[in-house]
Structures are given as C-alpha cells and as structure tokens.
C-alpha cells in the first residue's frame, strides 16, 4: 500500500483541486491590472486581470474531465473494436474494421485537430470527440494485437470446444487478459490527452473563451511569463503532477502484479 502513497499524493492534489476547487472559488469578477503581482492576489492576476488562484480553482475540472472522458471514450470504443477484429476468424471483417482506422492514422493528428476543431462548434464534447478519435487507431491496434495472440491460444480454444459464446469468451477472458497491456498504455494515453487539449488551446481551438482551464491558462498566460510567472507555472505544475502521478500509479500497479507467466 505504501508504494501507492507517492502517486496518490501526486494525483490527489490536482484531482482534488479540480473536483472541489470550484466550490471554493469566489464569484467575484472584478478585474485588476493584467499580469500583476500582489494587490491581495496570492498568485497574482492573469492575462485578463483575474485572480490566478481563483482561476486555478475553477480550471481543473474541465481539463481533468475532458482528458479523462476522452481517454475513457477511446477505450470504450477501441477495446470492443480491437476485440472484434482480433477475435474474428473472418479476414473480411478484420479488414473492414482496421482499414478505415489506418486512414485516420495517415492524417497527421495536428492537421486533424486544426480542421475538425475549426469545423465543429466550441463545446466540450467536440474536443473530447476529437481527442478520442485521434487516439482511437492506436488503441484499437494495441488491443487487436493482444486479442489476436490470446484468441489463438489454448485457453480460448478450450472454451470454444466447451461451446462458450463469443461474448463470454471476449468479456470473460480475452478482455481481462488484455488488462495489463492496456493499463501500461492507459497512463501515457491520458498524458497524451492532456497534451492534446493543451495543444488545441495553443492552436486556438476547442476551448470556449470564458472557460477557465489549466491547459488554456498555460497557453494564454505565457506572454506574461516574465512579469507574472505564477499564471503559467501553477497550472503547468498541476498538469505535470497529474500526469506524472497517473503514470507512476500505473507503473507501480504493473510492477506489483507479476505477469501470468512469472506467477507460475
């Protein structure tokens, strides 16, 4: 348990701030001089003269939820797709599932981000959708590859000989056996999602203007980095904490669970 203390602390700070921060934020909208320090502001003001701490309290929820939801959506879509493609014995179905994804893979993700985000309205679900779409092919490939090797293994064959349904084999065994591979991927995928949200903000797409958002803060306040570093440093630090914490947690979890092979 002890070894989860550090990752828990790393993840805990940003996540608690993100989830409960809005409860402590003031509704005060008065604006001060932009990028000023002092004047009753703990961490100074941002590009609009708003209180940085207040923005930090407000800005985590959208980022954490966007990145987490996007990652969750990716997995919810990709794993069943990968499972279906990997477990099917029909080459046609496999190709039909995989080729369109190759196409998505061939479009550079930044080009896709640029185009899709300019077409779609500024709503949180749009960004979630885009980030999920960009990550989709990779995760499908990973899950297909691991489903493929599992599906040709004796455990699956034994179940098929028992007359088990595909669903039961897929959910009851293959999906569970893939957990390790997917968990290793999940941490970096989540970081990638945060990163994409941040880049979207840099390209000026996807985040509604009024929204307080850590990723957007890093971008929008960067001009003031040298008068007022907190407006960038604080949200950046929280993002790094979050992503390091998540990855560390998965690293440790994986290390704690030996592979099936090692367990024997």
């Amino acid at each position, binding site marked *: 348990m002890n070894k989860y203390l550090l990752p828990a602390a790393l993840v805990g700070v940003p996540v608690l701030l993100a989830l409960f921060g809005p409860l402590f934020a003031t509704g005060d*909208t*008065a*604006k*001060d*001089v*932009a*990028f000023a320090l002092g004047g009753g502001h703990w961490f100074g003001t941002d*590009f*609009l*003269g708003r209180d940085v701490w207040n923005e930090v309290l407000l800005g985590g929820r959208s980022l954490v939820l966007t990145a987490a939801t996007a990652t969750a959506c990716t997995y919810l879509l990709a794993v069943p797709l990968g499972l279906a493609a990997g477990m099917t014995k029909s080459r046609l179905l496999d190709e039909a599932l995989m080729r369109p994804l190759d196409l998505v893979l061939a479009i550079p993700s930044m080009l896709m981000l640029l185009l899709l985000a*300019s077409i779609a309205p*500024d709503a949180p679900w749009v960004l979630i959708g885009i980030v999920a779409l960009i990550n989709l092919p990779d995760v499908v490939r990973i899950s297909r590859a691991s489903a493929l090797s599992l599906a040709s293994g004796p455990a699956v064959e034994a179940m098929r000989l028992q007359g088990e349904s595909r669903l039961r084999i897929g959910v009851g065994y293959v999906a569970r056996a893939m957990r390790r591979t997917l968990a290793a991927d999940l941490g970096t995928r989540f970081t990638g999602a945060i990163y994409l949200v941040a880049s979207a903000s840099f390209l*000026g797409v996807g985040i*509604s*203007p*009024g929204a307080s958002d850590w990723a957007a803060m890093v971008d929008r306040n*960067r*001009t*003031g980095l*040298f*008068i007022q570093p907190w407006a960038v440093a604080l949200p950046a630090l929280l993002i790094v904490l979050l992503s390091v914490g998540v990855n560390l947690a998965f690293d440790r979890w994986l290390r704690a669970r030996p592979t099936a092979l090692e367990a024997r």
Partner: protein
Amino acid sequence: AGGTGATAVGPPRPGGRLRAAFSGGGAAEVLDPHETDLYIEIARAKALFDKLADYGSDMSPQPRLAERWEPSQDLLTWRITLRRAAFHDGRPVRPADVLASFARIVEPGSSRRAKASLQVIDLPGSRELDDRTVEFRLKRPYAEFPNALATLGAYIVPEGTRDFDRPVGSGPFRFVSFQPGRNFVAARNPDYWDGAPHLDELEIVVTNDEAARVNALLGGQVEYAHDLTPTSARTHENAGRVQVHRLPLSNFHGLVLKTDRPPFDRPELRQAMFHLVNRDELVRSVLQGSGQLGNDLYGKGYRYYADALPQRAQDLDRARALIKQAGAEGLAIDFDTSDASTGLKEAALAIADQARQAGLNLNVRLGNKDTYWSDIAKNGVLASYRSGAMPLESHISQRLLTTSTTNNTKWQRPDFDALYHEAQSTADDARREQLYFQMQDQLHREGGFLWWGVSDWIVASAPNVGGIDDRAPANTLEWARYDKVWLA
C-alpha cells in the same frame, strides 16, 4: 520626427541596414500596392511607392506627391498640382500615371480596397491639365476629397504597370528582393523627392508570433519589431535592452449593437449597455493600461472629434433602470467574439461579467477567427469590434450611412445621412465641424457603436535606432517611416 530614442542615439547618421519584423500573410503576400491589406504590405508599399496624400497624426490629409489641391466652389472639381518627383527608373511622375493608377484601382471586376473611396471620381471626366496638373471631376460634392487620395492602397504606379515582380515606384527605397511570407529587401533611393533615407538598406522579415518578434529583437536579429502586446511592452520597457514606442490613438475597441433587430432595436437597451460598461476596468485589464478611455465615439483625438460631449462612466443603477424600461431583465443575449484580433475576446469576457451585475446575461460565443468579420456583418446582435485609424469622415461614410457597405450596426437614418451630405457639400470648415458635432451627439445618445477605449499601438526598436515618431497612430504618414530612421 524624433521619438524618445532620438536624444539617446544622437544625431542622424547615414548607412546601415534596418531589419524590421512584422507579422505576415504567408504565401499570399503580394507587392502590388493596390492590393495592400496587411500592415506588412502597407509598410512595404510605403517604402516603394507614394500616394498623392497621406494622413497626418490627427488624421487630416497631408500633401505627398500632390504639392497642393484646390477645389472648385461647388466642391465638384479638384485641381491637383504634382511635385517634381521621379520613379526609380528615372521617369518623372506625370498626371497620366495618376489617372492610370486610379483607373486600375476602380476597374470593373477589381476588389481593391481603395476602390470604394475613389469611385467618387468621374474618371472619364477627369483630365491632365499640364505635365504637373491633374483635374478630377467628382460625381458628388465632396469637401474632404483629399481623404480619398490618402486612402489605403491609393498608390501611384507608373502607367501601364501590370506586373509587380520587380516593382518600380517613386518611394524612398528601391526594390531589391522579395520572398512572399518570408522577407523583403529594398535599398536607399538617393533621388527621393523628400530627401534620401539615412539607411542604406531596409529589410522587412515575416515573424508571425509576437513572442518571436520580441525575441528576435532581444537577440539582435532585428532592429524593429512591429505590434507588441502591452504585456511584452511591460516586460521589457524598463530593462533597457529595447526602446518601446507606444503610438497613441491607433486602435479603437468597441462593441457592435445591431440597431435593426431585437433586442438592441430598443434604444433603452443600447443606452443600458452604454451605462453598464466599466471602461476603467477594461482599459486597466484588457489594455493593461496602454490606452485611454473611450466615450462611445469613434475618432478620439482626430479632427472633428466631439470633445465637448461629457465622458460616460459606469452607472449600474441607471443601467438597471433602462433594462427594466426595455423589459429586458434577465434576458440572455448571444455575444459574439473571436481571436481574430487581440483584446476582442478579453473585452467580451470582461463586459459579460459587468453586464451580469446589471442583470443582463451575455452569452459569450467564440467565433471562427478567419471568418469572424464577415460573420458578424450579417449575423448576431452583439459583437466585439475593433477599428484602426481613419478620418471621422471615412468612419461615417463606410459604416454609418444607409448606403455604407460595412454598416455593421445597421444604423440607417435618413436624417443622419442628410447631415453627412450637407457636411460634404459645404466648403465652410466651421459649419462642417458643427454638423459633425450633431452627428456625433446623436450617435453618443443612441448609436449602435460602443467604443469603450482606444489603445496604443506598440512597436519596439533596438536601442540604437533613432527617428521613430512616437505620436503617429498606426497606418498614418509618420508610422513605419523608415526613410526618417537611422542606426546610431
């Protein structure tokens, strides 16, 4: 001329190459001066070409290639006398060149910027009187016709020029090389009619990212950086590594309220907006103090501006009362803004917060920055807006007449139109001033524009650059005048 730096850098000194960083327009950039649109294109056109007139720091037309102008009594015929000037290839600037240039600008099928202003000229009726005099016939009386001569893009090119790969003009610099979206080099024109430039060479490089422009200046890669944010200015102002020039009265910030449709067809609601905006807070936060308060009128500090009208300040009680009167309490109104220009979005966010205090719910929508201007021209009811410097007359004729093409506030009042036409039909300056006051008074009471502030245009230069005029708004004669600049 002579800015803050002038004293520090000593007397003018000839020689050297000045590198200036501007943001650019990519591969689409052209050298055709009639197609100019971006600041960088104007700066280049200004180096290579001349107009007949240009705007002074108070937006009044100053003679350039035109030595002087004399209108007829009815303001329909204007006689222009040209200076003794020559193009870079040695040919003199003649009336034929002027007529040909204007004909090219207004030719059918062209979408050139100056076309709207110059269309007032009856070109077939205009003629060359002698080799230095040209006589323009106008289609209607136009007392401020020199404004049209100074308009953006009304450059004089040699007759018959079609191709601007290696442009020949009459400006202070001669063309050397050009790569669209990358850089432009020009060399001193020793025979320039207004005195040869101090610099040997001028290079204009494209640097789209503001931070990169500042960095390039700090790193000694350029000597002049155009268009800085107030934040950058504050960061580097006192460090002594660069000179910061704040060109006042350059950029007007405001809101567009569409007066022809609900809810802003109700004058009370427009007035409520006038009273709920906290201009001080906006200037402090959005402009970061680098600007002045606006009084909901365009053209502060310019000729004919109605200084006498009282300055407005936030009055929430008044605003609430007006909102109530308009029956708009708790109304949710879509508020369009975009990243198309700096400050638009920030102002919208701040104003939305201020409006909430008065009980009005402004729902900020971030529009696509590339199509923002044409989107708000047609759609929506409330939008962030900005405008560069232009004479009051141009502002009115382009934006506030029934016939205006970019009448974004849909301000269409026959009585207002009549005042404008009367002002253009009188040769009496005092009378015209009075008419302008009447127009502005009406706009101040119930117009569709809410100009809350005027910001400085910020440029920065290396410590050794002298001769930058610190009082010229962007886009005026003294702005980006590299022929007056020297390197110490």
